């Protein structure tokens, strides 16, 4: 219907300006205008995203000097290395643990903010989002300093409780714990903001009705809040899964993969192999292993976002 009106407007214009050349007609046509408006975007995606992405598949099949095609031998080489499997395992542990805790903390904090009187919510929300606003490279430096082996402010504080000095970044378990902790700290506010927006969109009548029916707070969360927020929870979690899985800054600055490569993720290991040891094909190969998980998450996000679009 709307299109018809628009078309009619254009026709009226075209007949009004009879003298316009055919070139001008072509330029004024909707599809031509649309093409020129989207051309920069298409070029950007093709040249700087799609081409490099495909190029990395090509790179992964070359030898270290990038002179010879070696087929899949980079991949088979990786499969035989223990470090590679450790990176796979650590990436999964890191991403899943961090996302679960981010989602939980985000959900809990969002509830508390939603609980307090509307007047104070803005102030609290503003304060609690600060970790997300600071560039992660900068805030990770602060964490590095908090974890410092000799002057650790955490160990200083813990010593009053009789807890011995913890080797935050020196020991495999604690180093893994620390990178997850920093990632949770950085990402939880994002979940909080998303969930808070979703909580606000749940109609109050539902809670009132449940209250009259005698539902307790847990039943209200389980039977009203969670179903109403299901879509936003799914999108946020999947999105965060992608970002966390591909994380670079935090691990790079905090541990650089150490101790003994036990905290490496795909991104940091690819950086070390590809850029620092200048074995570009192997680095490209490592980062390509992120693709399957990213693709699965992306497909589900797309499905949920489209569903949302249809609902609205």
């Amino acid at each position, binding site marked *: 219907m*709307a299109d018809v*009106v628009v078309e009619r*407007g254009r026709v*009226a214009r075209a007949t009004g300006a009879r003298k316009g050349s055919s070139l001008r007609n072509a330029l*004024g046509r*909707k*599809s031509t*205008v649309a*093409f020129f*408006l*989207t051309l*920069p*975007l298409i070029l*950007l*995606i093709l040249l*700087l995203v799609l081409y*490099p*992405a495909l*190029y*990395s598949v090509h*790179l992964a099949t070359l030898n270290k000097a990038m002179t010879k095609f070696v087929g899949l031998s980079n991949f088979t080489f990786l499969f035989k290395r223990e470090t590679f499997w450790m990176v796979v395992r650590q990436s999964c542990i890191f991403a899943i643990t961090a996302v679960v805790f981010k989602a939980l*903390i985000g959900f809990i*904090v969002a509830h*508390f903010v939603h*609980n307090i009187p509307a007047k104070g919510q*803005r102030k*609290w929300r503003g304060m*609690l989002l600060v970790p*997300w*606003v600071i*560039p*992660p*490279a900068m*805030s990770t*430096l*602060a964490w590095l*300093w*908090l974890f*410092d082996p*000799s*002057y650790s*402010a955490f160990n200083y504080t813990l010593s009053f409780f009789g807890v011995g000095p913890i080797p935050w970044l020196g020991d495999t378990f604690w180093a893994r714990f620390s990178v997850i902790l920093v990632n949770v700290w950085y990402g*939880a506010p994002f979940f909080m*903001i*998303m969930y808070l927006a979703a909580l606000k969109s749940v109609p109050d009548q539902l809670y009132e009705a449940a209250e009259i029916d005698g539902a307790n*707070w847990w039943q209200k969360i389980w039977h009203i809040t969670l179903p109403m927020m299901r879509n*936003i929870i799914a999108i946020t979690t999947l*999105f965060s899964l992608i970002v966390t899985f*591909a994380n*670079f800054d935090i691990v790079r600055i905090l541990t650089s993969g150490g101790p003994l490569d036990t905290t490496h993720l795909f991104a940091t290991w*690819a*950086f070390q192999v*590809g*850029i620092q040891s200048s074995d570009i094909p192997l*680095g490209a190969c490592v*980062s*390509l292993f*992120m*693709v399957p998980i*990213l693709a699965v998450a992306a497909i589900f996000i797309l499905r949920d976002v489209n569903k949302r679009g249809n609902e609205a």
Partner: protein
Amino acid sequence: MSTLAIDKAGPSRKVKYGSMSRDRTWALRWSYFFLVLFAIFFLTPPVYMLITSLKSSAEISAATNPWWVFHPTLSNYVELLSSNQFLRFFWNSSIISIIVVIVTMMISIPAAFALARMKFWGSATLATGVFLTYLIPDSLLFIPLFKVLGGVQELTGITLLNRWYVLVFIYPTLTVPFCTWIMIGYFASIPKELDEAALIDGASWLQTLTRIFIPVALPGLIAATIFAFTVSWAQFLYPLVFTTSVDQLVLPVGITTTLIKGDVFNWGQIMTGALLGAAPPLVIYAFLMDYYIAGLTAGATKG
């Protein structure tokens, strides 16, 4: 029958009301208690940055109470802000971020307009493609991009690697997809009658965009601008890979590579630098919080 039920509920009602309001008070107290705990967790690192930045190196190495400043000094700030190197980082970061914001807007606003309003062949596919591009992380592309840039450099003779301006070309891959995506959402929410009226009055597509869509969707535009700026300001991986000379570095890379000299960590200066590097996004956030949050939530709720 029904009156009987109401009568029965009558006397017990008052008691229930009392217990409910008591429950509410307790829920409120617990909420505040936990909010304070979480606020401490969330704000410890930035506050600790500030504390350390006010200490002299002597005080830091004296290993006194790390949570308190006994002899506050601004020497770290003076030293950094008078160092040409640090100002260079700051300048590089600023100029790159500003150019990237402008480029991003020039690409994504027209594209979002076309995708939101002009149904053309492949427009739905392109919109989906834009969203998928947004989901591709930087850590997947930095190695091939490094090679591609090297290849272009060889082919054209233009030095790209180790120059700050190369980042101006690369950052839009991170900012444009999301900005286009949320602008599509904002543009689509504008009533169709507005642009139909303009078209009937004889406005061209471009006039409709600049006279109607941009002014009406200004809040979305501000949100997208903030997003583009903060992303370019915080980007760490690309500058780390593509630039190495000290005079070409941006702030995050500059601080992590130059202020850490060997194994000697000058923590006072590192924390001061980190705080100054975090300042522009924090200032923008403090003043434009509502736009910032609108941009953050729009990605999942619009479109």
